[in-house]
């Protein structure tokens, strides 16, 4: 083997080694960056799960609002406390993890909790003030989730709200509270009417719209039964 050849061979081996080390070094940096991002995603998923659980408990509490007329304000006050707690304990941590730029990057992590929370807070405000809160209301009432909320999420939350109101309505029929039932019926009817108008705008809204329709049909049937029952009682008393 000529001297030139051996030198060439050796430098080729060195180049290859350098190339390999350089590549490994580059990818070690990428690994750190990916790990960081995945860890953050996991932390957000855990917080989102806590929000879901706490919001569901708040909704269960609100369902008891008609059980005892004297305790109504108490129930509402406790629900408000629960909602504030979720703000303080979970939403503040989520906002600390992400800044507004990364809001959509991590949306899949916290979106389930967000939907459940919106359901709880809209339900609370319906019972308290007999109205639907708007997107701008939410930004001032609950700035942390409010700022994260997209129109789609909010619409999905309203669809879920119609489900909870349907449950409330059916419960009310058990205790003969017909005025509440008719009020809920009108409310869901307007929601449904407007929902149809937006159902074609994004994938997923169509399905939510069908859910609202089903809830409305159940409520209308319950009101119909209640009307007939009251008429029977009048007629036969």
């Amino acid at each position, binding site marked *: 083997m000529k001297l030139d050849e051996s030198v060439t061979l050796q430098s080729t081996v060195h180049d*290859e080694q350098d*190339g*390999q080390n350089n*590549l*490994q070094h*580059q*990818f*070690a940096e*990428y*690994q750190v*960056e*990916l*790990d960081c*991002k*995945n860890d953050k995603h996991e932390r957000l998923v855990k917080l989102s799960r806590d929000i879901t659980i706490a919001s569901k408990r708040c909704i269960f509490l609100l369902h008891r609002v008609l059980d005892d007329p004297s305790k109504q304000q108490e129930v509402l006050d406790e629900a408000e406390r629960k909602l504030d707690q979720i703000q303080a304990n979970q939403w503040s941590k989520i906002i600390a993890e992400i800044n*507004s*730029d*990364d*809001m*959509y*990057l991590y*949306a899949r992590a916290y979106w389930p909790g967000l939907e459940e929370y919106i359901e709880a807070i809209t339900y609370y405000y319906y019972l308290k003030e*007999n*109205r*639907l*809160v*708007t*997107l*701008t209301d939410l930004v001032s009432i609950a700035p942390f989730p409010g700022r994260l909320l*997209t*129109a*789609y999420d*909010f*619409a999905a939350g*309203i669809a879920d709200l119609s489900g909870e109101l349907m449950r409330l309505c059916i419960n009310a029929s058990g205790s003969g509270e017909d005025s509440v039932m008719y*009020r809920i019926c*009108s*409310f869901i009817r*307007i*929601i449904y009417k*407007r*929902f149809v*108008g*937006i159902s074609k*705008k*994004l994938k997923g809204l169509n399905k939510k719209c069908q859910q609202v329709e089903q809830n409305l049909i159940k409520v209308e049937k319950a009101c119909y039964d209640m009307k007939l029952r009251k008429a029977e009682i009048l007629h036969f008393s």
Partner: protein
Amino acid sequence: MDAKESVEAAFDQIKLELDTFQSVKEQVRIAVEKLEAISEAIFNRLQNFHENTTPDYVKEICGQARKFLPKVKEGIFDLQKTFPPSDYYRYADHWHHVMQHLVFQCSLIVYMEEETLITRDQVAQSLGVSTNKADGFHITLEDYLQGVLLLPGELSRIAVNCVIHEDYQRPIQIASFLSQLNAAYKVLNLKNDALRRKYDGLKYEVKKAEGIVYDMKIRRLIP
């Protein structure tokens, strides 16, 4: 505001935001389509590596492909203008595909020129973007890593065609490079996502390239 009024107000806001979102998405889609056309033109040029891999020819093809890069930069600049800078990740799903292909094409050019892997910073420079979300439109790490994973398939095919046009040296280098690339990707902790699935394909390309080198050795086409 009574119940009815509040529902109307809420849905007025929702409708407005959804309509705005729709129209921005449409603008993004159009801009991405333009980028895809440029990417296809580059891809077209680079396919010539399968015909001929002599150094002068490679230099010529790379030169032709590089001529498109200013158009790419322009296209990305136009894309950037279609949405508010803070909403990058809101619309990012629209351009993952074309960005990954542009990463792949840049990495193929650099590989054929220098036999190394293009770095993320070099890709960013070629495309006229940043690597940092704070600096606006940027190339994400995932798009870079997934884009690079389009390279092994192309290189193993080039290796096959090298044998056909009697360039017996390049497949050896390709096999070595792919094995280095595989070792580099092993360093990452991947989740069960699209990146992981793409990475799973890499080992088959490594095997294929090694198979080509073996085929040449046993027929004494190489020492």
